[in-house]
């Protein structure tokens, strides 16, 4: 990052939610940082000028959950392959959950991920440390050491701790070091064996269900524990109306709890399962139209402060089977921006609000004031995108190694033109 060029991005509509700026102006970058906004400093000679006329210039996106599958699951994806996908999607920082092989439950694995991602230099990868050793849900990890090794937060990936006492102790220990804890709200017993929302569509298709209560029971437990322990918890991927309602109520009482939602939950629903499309097999499951509307409202009201790709690239075989036997998760990085723009088109958020939930919203959950903003002196992580560009999702232009997207063949609006990481161009179309 030392050799970042001097760049001017000219005539773009700069939107920076941190400062509230929304104006057509120029952005000047040097030494990997923002040098100036508006007029260039006297004598500034850019190495290159990008013409952003008609485009939006904003901070690079911060994604709270994107699996890069490395180490250990390289048949699905690698830090390099998903780094390219992230860069093409405007994502400059992503958090990877600890369910790698080996699990991120010790500093060595966290450092390895840091090293590899630095080497490729495509995206800033923040590992999430495991709450329990080997994600076994029984013994807590060396959280202080994980923090020192660069873990931004702690997580159990999608394997929630069953034992409530262990959960309590893990939250207490994490709070000792001021580490936020990402929790996937899913009761392990109520969701066991399930692969679809327990609703009308799942019932008709005879798919084993995951009831709304699988989420609300977990939300209730973890909110009570957060209140008891003073830990800062973040609900990763809420999916139900009642779940966000409970979060809002707890936030109003001052409980330190935040929440995000995966974009696919805001545009897909249980009805997309009707032909057993395994690419719609996600956990938590796609729920009802009413849930979708409530999630959108919670996003607009600020109960949910981050949008997330919940990117889970899979090898083709993982999705080749009868629906319940396939691996859950979809490849979501490349559809992050166009799906977020759909919320703008639908009037849920304005552009500023959408960008906020992709930048300082998630950065605040990570307690990283240095991410997700474009002020003089801040990191030159920049996304330049064309909000009107229409493109068709096709296998030959797809970048992620995981092609498991339900949007293959669909026409989407909104495409990244350039992505800059620390002042270097890591993607250009």
């Amino acid at each position: 990052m030392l050799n970042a060029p001097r760049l001017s991005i000219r005539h773009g509509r700069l939107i920076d939610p941190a400062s509230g700026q929304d104006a057509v102006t120029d952005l000047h970058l040097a030494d990997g940082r923002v040098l100036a906004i508006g007029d260039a400093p006297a004598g500034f000679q850019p190495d290159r000028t990008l013409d952003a006329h008609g485009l939006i210039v904003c901070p690079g996106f911060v994604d709270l959950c994107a699996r890069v599958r490395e180490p250990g699951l390289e048949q699905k994806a690698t830090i390099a392959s998903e780094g390219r996908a992230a860069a093409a999607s405007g994502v400059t920082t992503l958090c990877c959950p600890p369910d790698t092989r080996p699990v991120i439950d010790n500093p060595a694995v966290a450092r390895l991920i840091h090293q590899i991602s630095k080497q490729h230099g495509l995206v800033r990868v923040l590992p999430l440390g495991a709450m329990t050793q080997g994600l076994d849900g029984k013994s807590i990890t060396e959280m202080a050491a994980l923090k020192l090794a660069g873990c931004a937060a702690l997580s159990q990936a999608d394997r929630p701790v069953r034992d409530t006492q262990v959960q309590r102790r893990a939250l207490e220990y994490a709070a000792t070091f001021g580490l936020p804890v990402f929790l996937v709200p899913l009761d392990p017993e109520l969701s066991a064996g399930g692969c679809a929302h327990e609703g009308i569509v799942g019932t008709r298709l005879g798919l084993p269900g995951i009831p709304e209560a699988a989420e609300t029971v977990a939300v209730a437990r973890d909110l009570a524990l957060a209140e008891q322990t003073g830990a800062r918890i973040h609900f990763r991927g809420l999916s139900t109306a009642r779940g966000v309602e409970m979060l809002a109520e707890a936030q109003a009482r001052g409980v330190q709890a935040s929440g995000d939602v995966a974009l696919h939950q805001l545009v897909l629903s249980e009805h997309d399962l009707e032909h057993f499309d395994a690419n719609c097999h996600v956990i938590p499951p796609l729920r009802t139209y009413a849930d979708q509307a409530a999630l959108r409202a919670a996003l607009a009201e600020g109960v949910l402060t981050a949008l997330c790709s919940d990117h889970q690239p899979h090898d083709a075989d993982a999705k080749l089977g009868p629906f319940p036997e396939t691996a859950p998760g979809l490849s979501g990085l490349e559809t992050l921006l166009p799906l977020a723009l759909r919320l703008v088109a639908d009037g849920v958020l304005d552009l500023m609000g959408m960008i906020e939930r992709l930048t300082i919203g998630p950065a605040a959950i990570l307690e990283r004031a240095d991410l997700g903003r474009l002020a003089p002196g801040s990191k030159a992580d920049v996304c330049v995108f064309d909000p009107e560009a229409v493109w068709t999702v096709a296998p030959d232009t797809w970048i992620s190694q995981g092609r498991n997207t339900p949007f293959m063949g669909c026409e989407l609006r909104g495409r990244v033109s350039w992505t800059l990481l620390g002042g270097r161009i890591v993607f250009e179309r």
Partner: protein
Amino acid sequence: MTCSHPQLDAQGRLKHCLTLDGLSRELLTEILDQAESLLGVSRQAVKKVPLCRGKVIANLFFENSTRTRTTFELAAKRLSADVLNLNISTSATAKGETLLDTLRNLEAMHVDMFVVRHATSGAAHFMAAHAAPHVSIVNAGDGRHAHPTQALLDLLTIRQHKPDFSQLRVAIVGDILHSRVARSQMIALQTLGVPDVRVIAPRTLLPTHVEAAFGVTAYHDLSEGVRDADVVIMLRIQRERMNSALLPSEHEYFQLFGLTEERLATAKPDAIVMHPGPINRGVEMDSQVADGRRSVILEQVTNGIAVRMAVMSMCLGNQGLTSQHLEDTAHA
């Protein structure tokens, strides 16, 4: 996110038989009419018609089922097809072969139709989506999802006794939650215009959204649920559901939901009693009912062969045949 119909060809004819969901009343009626015409074949001295001569039909059973497999086998043989019986639960998958590998290997042997039974919902749809273009898939039961030929043979049996579907009251009793038979029945009864379909079970055996999903009415009391019913369909209950979080005991289940002559007293005097078999006597119903005058259980078995002949024949290209044509073929 594809919207094309998974089981009809471009001309709207039956290509696969995966589920009754999405099939029109006209198509269901045509299948029943064809089955009715084919019933005669089984009563002839030479029990064969050449409708599928030269075709190869493979019975691909990933779950054991002697009864269903046997009726499919007989149906295929009466259509003059060559039949392969593959009991996969004990062979390929035990060696780690995937469902798709199994399909590809058999396709390479130029099989024209697979009759598939699998423990996972959606297995038949998956196979249809990946089968070669000339191959047809007939679902012989997938997980909790669908068992279309069973529901069709039930409809044929009902129609033989109660020809006017628009006047019927049908009660389905038992483990609706895990039943692919019940799902296919509820969908078909609704498509054919049956105005009152009831499901009767304790809440643990009813899907949470059964009423909204299938347009039926849920009852938790057997006598009340079968009141004035024209048709009472009993479902098989798996013994492993007993002594679990779903049901406390066979004893209590039979006390509350087992069908006896006494409990049947509230049904219409000419009500028929059905069961997909095999019956757990003393759990789902007592022998007096199973062997009684209202029981049409053995007719269901006979109809099963005719319905499966009709479905297989139609999927292999013999749709739109008139009953006269079928009878001519039968006597040829």
